């Protein structure tokens, strides 16, 4: 499974999107564009990525740009996974 599929699956679960993420692509805007993505959901998303993909997010490396689009989030995760 590629990174984008994994990220979208976690996104769908955490935000209770009921499969809506299937229509998302790299350019889909996230923060500020998806109502479900409030601050609690951002935290759940980070936790979900950490727990399910086994990566560790340093609090100082997260900023608004990370969650701007599906593409930026996937790049961030791929960077963490790739080491």
């Amino acid at each position, binding site marked *: 499974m590629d990174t984008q599929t994994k990220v979208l699956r976690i996104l769908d679960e*955490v935000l*209770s999107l009921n499969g809506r993420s299937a229509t998302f692509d790299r350019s889909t805007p996230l923060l500020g564009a998806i109502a479900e993505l409030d601050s*609690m959901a951002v935290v759940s998303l*980070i936790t979900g990525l950490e727990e399910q993909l086994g990566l560790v997010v340093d609090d100082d490396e*997260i900023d608004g740009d990370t*969650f701007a689009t599906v593409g930026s989030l996937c790049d961030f995760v791929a960077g963490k996974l790739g080491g």
Partner: protein
Amino acid sequence: MKPEPQAFFLPADPAAAAGGQRFCVHHPAQGEHLRGRIVYAHPFAEEMNKTRRMAALQARAFAAAGYSVLQIDLHGCGDSSGDFADASWQAWIDDLVAASSWLRERDEPHRQAPLWLWGLRSGCLLISAALTQLAAGESQALKLCLWQPSSAGKLLLQQFMRLRLAADLAGGQSRGQMEAMRQQLQAGQAVDIAGYLLAPGLALGLEAARLLPPEPATLVDRLEWFEISSRSDAELSPVATQALAAWSADGDRRVRSHLIQGPAFWQTSEIEDAPALIEASTAALS
């Protein structure tokens, strides 16, 4: 006839860390034979709100299965005395002990029935921190039912503090926030996170909490550990495996882990149910 849940206010012990009264809901056991007493320890802040429904459903299921269940709203958590800013880890430990005493003193069958502590998320750590005090009033060993426990309070505190980070993401103010908040707490000041004023007395207690086997080992003779995952191919988390090994190695204790497929209902955007968890938990206790 099915007994109805009863809501009431429990006056705090004058010697407790915080006064006033606590909102409680008692679910009387159904059936002739009382199979046990259960005290529930809820998570805090948004996780508490998101899990109210699951907690109520499980409490009713336990009651229907012959357990006498008490849900207590901890100090400063909304329905009880105090604001969240007044809440402290020690006051919550005292609340849990007071809840178990109330349930024990109901009548003779209650005094003789075993005591289960059922916790969710930070509630599991609270139970762990309260074990010695809880056991002091009991004639039998304690039994634990833990839902999605965290092995260290430090992780839960970090997740909670990230809420503030997340709220500031769009404004680009997030960098350095965590360190600033930690320093504020260390200096004895409360920090405002997502509308919750987190006091040092709560933050530092939670941060120090660990889910370790009790001393002496005989305090607890049963542990039912539940992890929930949305994936069908999930395995128990490495942290859980490690914690369970420690609890199993220690004394003559029955330790079981259960991996349940279901939504992360304590954090999902919508309020979700995990019926498989309720079914498995009810079955596990008997």
